[in-house]
């Protein structure tokens, strides 16, 4: 066998476990980026990540202004944690993040998911977390294929050119 033979990635399975705006976007950009390159992609949402595919919340995600040491004021000064606790600040910061994304032609979460599935990407929800949060299939975005167990997820992650990514 040729040692220098390239083995391009064929499939990525991405787990999104957090519901912050930037965490959900990170998962979406990686998953959609895979589809754009002709790589098969499966997105699995679990725990607070489920907000990213819950109809009620998916387009209203926030960036945390408390407990986020990388958060800075415009201009680069540190962002005081106490400031982040003031009502409305988190909403304002999240709106700024969304504007920044829109400038780069990054769509809102629901439209991003539509783009991703139009390219053949698949979306699943975690059974255990959905049960824990009392979520039914009807609460989730309409193109979520199924609510599945982690065992099923591993089954779908077969193939020796597959990577599992946890965000």
């Amino acid at each position: 066998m040729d040692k220098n033979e390239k083995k391009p990635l064929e499939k990525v399975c991405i787990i999104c476990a957090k519901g912050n705006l930037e965490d959900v976007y990170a998962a979406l950009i990686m998953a959609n980026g895979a589809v754009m390159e002709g790589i098969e992609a499966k997105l699995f949402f679990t725990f607070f990540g489920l907000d990213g595919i819950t109809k009620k919340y998916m387009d209203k995600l926030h960036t945390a202004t408390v407990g986020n040491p990388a958060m800075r004021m415009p201009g680069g000064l540190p962002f005081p944690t106490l400031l982040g606790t003031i009502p409305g600040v988190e909403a304002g910061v999240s709106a700024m993040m969304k504007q920044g994304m829109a400038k780069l032609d990054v769509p809102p979460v629901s439209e991003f998911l539509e783009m991703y599935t139009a390219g053949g990407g698949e979306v699943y929800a975690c059974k255990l977390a959905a049960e824990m949060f009392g979520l039914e299939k009807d609460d989730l975005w309409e193109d979520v294929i199924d609510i599945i167990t982690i065992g099923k997820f591993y089954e779908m992650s077969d193939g020796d050119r597959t990577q599992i990514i946890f965000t």
Partner: protein
Amino acid sequence: MKDLNIAGINVNLDDEGYLTDSSQWNEEVAKELAKIDDLELTDKHLEVLKFLRDTYNAGDALTIRRVGKSGVVTIKEFYKLFPKGPLKLSSKHAGLPKPTSCV
């Protein structure tokens, strides 16, 4: 870098098969470039390529989302027309540089 003789014109391709000089592009060149990727271009394909060229020449970044909003094709159709990497393939056949966008 290699040269390709298409319909009597010599066009230059970079290592990844993109035209080095976008002004050398025409429909014949597009069809020959697509053949390298085993793709037979239809009128619909050419319509997409023209949209990409117009957008690019207007100075706008090319993204799949923009193609989807073009009114020429939906994103689903775009993936069907240029399977396995629609933006890269179509940019290549449109004689444009390799797209650098992540979305």
